[in-house]
């Protein structure tokens, strides 16, 4: 596997302990290069979401360091610029949640320009053209002035992606973006993710969508009990898994 002197994301020996006892991440390392698409698989409770949330510091890692696009945060450090650094990393990372989490009191367009206007201090009329471009890109131009509650789950997730992209992030994180969706709506969201990957976005996705993992991902990692069980190209993982447990897990998932 590629060693890179300047990866987009560099996670070093990250531990996460909840409530003083629950050891969820046990020394995770991960490097992701610019433009790479990573898929993380693993049984429920293995710590996939926790890892994603550590990357944009929604959870503070208990030990280790996180580096995103040159900004580095060490666990347990108490420097003055730390808060600013955290915000900086968050601006550079877009995140899509399983439950979309659109802002229900705003229209679709307002959701998308919220980040640029409030966080990046852009003027509304500066922010709107790009927001419209993104809406067009996710295919929801005609929903511009609807409230999220009037959209289907798939449409909501696409708006959520556009909302993240409006911040022009360096990295996109997806945490099971399709698992709250009806089977027929999954396709439209995976499609958007695929186009995003093709356009060169750096992506880390936790998803059980086999099509995405097999055909779009550059690398697949399997997590179990807070450690990497196995990693490799989709070909390696799905066709020649090294581990007995990987094989077990995959048969589970692929029915």
């Amino acid at each position, binding site marked *: 596997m590629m060693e890179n002197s300047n990866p987009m994301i560099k996670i070093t020996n990250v531990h996460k302990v909840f409530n003083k006892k629950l050891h969820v991440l046990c020394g995770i390392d991960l490097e992701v290069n610019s433009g790479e698409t990573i898929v993380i698989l693993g049984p429920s409770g293995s710590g996939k979401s926790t890892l994603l949330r550590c990357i*944009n510091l*929604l959870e503070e890692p208990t030990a280790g360091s996180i580096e995103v696009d040159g900004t580095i945060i060490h666990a347990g450090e108490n420097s003055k610029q730390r808060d600013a650094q955290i*915000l*900086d990393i*968050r*601006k550079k*990372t*877009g*995140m899509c*949640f399983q*439950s979309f*989490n*659109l*802002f*229900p*009191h705003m229209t679709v367009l307002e959701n998308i320009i*919220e*980040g640029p206007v*409030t*966080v990046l201090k852009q003027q509304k009329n500066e922010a709107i053209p790009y927001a419209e471009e993104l809406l067009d890109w996710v295919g929801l131009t005609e929903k511009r002035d*609807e*409230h*999220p*509650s*009037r959209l289907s789950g798939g449409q909501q997730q696409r708006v*959520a992606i556009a*909302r*993240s992209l409006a*911040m022009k992030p360096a990295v996109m994180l997806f945490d099971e973006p399709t698992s709250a969706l009806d089977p027929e709506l999954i396709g439209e969201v995976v499609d958007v993710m695929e186009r995003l990957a093709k356009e060169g976005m750096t992506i880390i996705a936790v998803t059980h969508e086999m099509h995405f993992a097999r055909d779009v991902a550059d690398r697949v990692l399997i997590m179990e009990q807070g450690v990497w069980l196995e990693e490799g190209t989709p070909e390696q993982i799905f066709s020649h898994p090294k581990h007995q447990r990987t094989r077990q897990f995959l048969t589970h998932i692929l029915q």
Partner: protein
Amino acid sequence: MENTTTDQQTPIILSRIPPEAEATLHGIEVKKTRYRRNLIIAFAVLITLMVATLIIIGLDFKFMIKWVPFILTGIGYTLLVSFLAISLACFLSVAGALGRLSLNPVLNSIATSYVSLVRGTPLLVQVYMWYIALPQIGKSLEDLGITGVQALFTLPAIPAGILALGVCYGAYMTETVRAGIQSIKIGQIEAAKALGMTNSQAMRRIIFPQAVRVIIPPVSNEFIAMIKDSSLVSLMGVWELSFRAIKIGRRHFQSLEMLIMVAMIYWVMCFILQLVQEKIETHMARGDRGTS
């Protein structure tokens, strides 16, 4: 059954409602109308019973009607005090809720003490504190050499009443606002943070606007309650509704009549406010569904 519809090429067009179904739907409508009619009858009977009771008690209606205009003159004070007090309470409750949720020990303890003290003591006592105790504090400060404080602290009845009610309701509403803020799903806060918002940006732009919708119904309940509690300023001699009613009642030894009358006035006010409240709530609910 196998051929029921498979030959139908365009099942997308809604088939027309069949006659049997029409009959059932009509039956449902009829039941609804009948229910509404019965409800109205029941209410009418109840109101008649109530009026009958008032007559049975032997109330002096002539006396009551004679004094209506005099008492209604006090409604201005009642509304003025209630309105300003609820505004103050809104302000204090937001500050209080932020304090209660704050990680700063000073703000947190101030907010917590405020809520505990005010909620734990009768409003009556608080009215006295603002009216009688505050000037005494002013006097003591003056004795310590700070001139002009006593005059400042010797509040007239109406400002003292507004402060007493506002501060008291602010404490109760602090808990409402806090609950409203906490009712916002954690996902909303995380989404805001993931965009890079600071805590205060997330509070202002995302949490608070959503919490307001949760908060408005209980707050309008509080306002309705305050209309009634505002009668406490009569203790300080403000000639509002209750004061006038009690005064006339005492003079003629017909307090019961006067109190029933003033109760009816309060009830009508509350009723109107409740209608307004329902309007606001349905309006907001509509916004929720996004048809703006």
